[in-house]
């Protein structure tokens, strides 16, 4: 590995971590699309800053662009308050307009500005090692490493400082307000940090893909854990993994690094989406199937308990009256018999003693609306699950 390669991977990893941190909170607060709006609408700010400073890594440019991001957020919120259009329409209107202004500014000054549309969409990670910070004759490393490093440092310290407040306001806005943490300050603070991060990452990965780095690691982590701390750590790990594996894939295919990074994130998300324990699609579908059968079983047992008359308790009744298909009724009957909850004599079904006890207790939980307790009850009574 050459030193340039190491530097690129280092920058990519730092960008990924810097994005994953605010991303976790944006995903949890259902504000993920705001990152899309910010990342597009900072473009005129960046171009304007570039006209002034001629340097994509200048702090002035970053401040200017981040300000554009915050202004966008306020503009969106202003339009939402006028109620002239629905909330999501407001987002959808503002950012394409601002992004268009940026694109036109670049196109109209293509000869004077060394910024091109590809850089806007993809970033220029491959060139990052060549723009170096030199102080007093000594080479201090790539400029963008310093930029993203400082941004990361700031957001990590803010995170450590306000972890408790952020956690509280994310999960319980009302409580946070009563405890004296202003949700408004945290709301705009988070958006400002997101803006600054997006500007810092823009140079490396471009306008659209920064959204992938913000949302995908956090979304994948959210399918694996409930614990905020673990979720933050996992998102950072996912981000770094995508950064490094993406770099090597780009190397292999001779394609865009940013594109490869988000493709790796996409694959990662697909894996988690399908196979995550408990929350992945496969495990959800399996559980749903089981729940469906077990709910049906409960319905059936309750029905038996409610009705004394034999015709209501006849096997045939299941299909005719409770309106179940043949397969469904057979599965329910099997499950009930296997668990010794019922016995069938001449086609008439009776609850066993155990079945009666189970039904009575389940009914008790249902009327006081505590479905979770039923799960424990099932553990206690069932030999076989659905």
């Amino acid at each position, binding site marked *: 590995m050459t030193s340039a390669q190491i530097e690129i991977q280092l920058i990519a990893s730092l960008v990924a971590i810097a994005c994953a941190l605010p991303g976790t909170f944006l995903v949890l607060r259902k504000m993920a699309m705001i990152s899309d709006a910010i990342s597009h609408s900072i473009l005129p700010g960046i171009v304007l800053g570039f006209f002034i400073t001629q340097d994509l890594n200048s702090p002035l440019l970053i401040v200017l662009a981040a300000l554009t991001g915050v202004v966008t957020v306020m503009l969106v919120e202003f339009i939402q308050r006028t109620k002239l*259009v*629905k909330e999501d329409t407001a987002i959808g*209107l503002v950012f*394409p307009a601002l992004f268009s202004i940026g694109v036109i500014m670049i196109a109209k000054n*293509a000869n004077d500005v060394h910024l091109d549309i590809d850089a806007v969409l*993809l970033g220029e990670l491959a060139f990052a090692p060549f723009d170096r910070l030199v102080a007093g004759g000594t080479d201090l490393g790539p400029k963008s490493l310093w930029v993203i490093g400082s941004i990361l440092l700031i957001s990590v310290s803010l995170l450590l400082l306000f972890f408790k407040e952020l956690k509280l306001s994310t999960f319980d806005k009302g409580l946070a307000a009563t405890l004296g943490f202003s949700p408004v300050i945290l709301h705009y603070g988070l958006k400002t940090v997101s803006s600054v991060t997006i500007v810092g990452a823009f140079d490396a990965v471009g306008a659209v893909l920064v959204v992938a780095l913000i949302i995908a690691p956090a979304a994948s982590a959210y399918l694996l854990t409930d614990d905020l701390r673990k979720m933050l750590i996992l998102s950072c790990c996912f981000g770094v993994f995508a950064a490094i594996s993406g770099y090597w894939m780009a190397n292999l295919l001779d394609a865009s690094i940013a594109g490869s990074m*988000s493709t790796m994130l*996409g694959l990662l998300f697909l894996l988690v989406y399908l196979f995550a324990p408990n929350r992945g699609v496969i495990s959800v579908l399996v559980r749903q199937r089981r729940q469906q059968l077990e709910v049906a079983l409960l319905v059936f047992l309750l029905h038996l308990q409610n009705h004394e008359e034999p015709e209501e308790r006849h096997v045939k009744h299941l299909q005719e009256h409770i309106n179940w298909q043949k397969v469904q009724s057979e599965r329910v009957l099997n499950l009930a018999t296997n668990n010794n909850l019922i016995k069938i004599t001449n086609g008439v079904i009776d609850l066993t003693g155990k079945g009666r006890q189970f039904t009575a207790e389940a009914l008790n939980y249902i009327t006081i609306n505590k479905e979770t307790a039923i799960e424990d009850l099932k553990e206690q009574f069932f030999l076989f699950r659905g």
Partner: protein
Amino acid sequence: MQLSDFFTDYTLRTITLGTAILGAICGMLGSFAVLRKQSLLGDAISHAALPGIALAFIITGVKDRNLILIGALISGLVGAFWIKGIVKHTRLKSDTALGLILSLFFGFGMLLLTFIQKMPNANQAGLDKYLFGQAATLVEQDVWVMAVVTGVSLFVLLLFWKELKLLLFDADYTKTLGFNTQFLDILITSFIVIAIVLGLQTVGVVLMSAMLLAPAAAARQWTNNLAKMVALASMFGALSGVVGTGISASQSNLSTGPVIVLVAASFVMFSFVFAPNRGLLARAIRFRRNRKDLNLKKTLTFMHHIVRNHENISHPHSIRILNNFHGFTLKTLSVLEQRQFIRIEGDQWSMTEEGFTEATSIYDQLGQTDD
């Protein structure tokens, strides 16, 4: 370029016609997207179309417009359904699902595009036009495709107008009347996806969603009638398309997408401010008038309070006793006199019969809202 070129230059005429039709279909179907609260779904679908464009080229090895459209359509639909799957089967909310699909598909598409650029295949040039769109690449055949699709969707829209309107307003009720809402849902969603895919060549994947939203959002401000809104949105869309294309064609180095979007955005801005009734300006004027009216009413009811204890309601009172009352100015007094609710003689005022009835009815209204 001159204006007269539009009518003489064959290529220019084709392009203008193409963007006009595109704008019209986007405005028409965009109205439904906006009213269904699916504004950002369009954004996700258009970004998700990019890998389809690239894959269509990689698989077939030729740059055939229609194949590319089909590729875009398939990957756009895959994206749309995956979003639905994520929202349905996991704990992730719709905003996260939209952002995920949008950025991940686009990233994958960009990977493929940069990969294609390195391929030793001469005719690959021009796929990146799909990012921001280039109206100049429209040919007569494209315009025909657009015209046919627009015609079909207009026909279907008119055919199922009643049912679609019902679905947009009250989906549950639609079901209880015996209509198949799933069919209607698939119908309208597919047409929205088709409109997006049609626009990719002209407006590009990055900005296509704005083309769908902006004309509809502007049109909504001018009318409270769905049919008029759809018609107006088509008009705004067509106009944005034509004007935007004209501007971008007259300049070098300018993609059509951003220009069209900015033209459409200025329609929106204008409508937000100047639309009668809903517009911000009209609203501000109404607000001021209401406040004045309120002051008037307050003063009149205050007078009513004083007067109703007297047997003769027209008994004169000194103006001075009004001074300690909050909403009172000399101006309100003269307006009240103009409306013949009171009479003023010197520094005395007295209430008229009309004034008393008016005040009583205001009082009743206030009483009712207090319930």
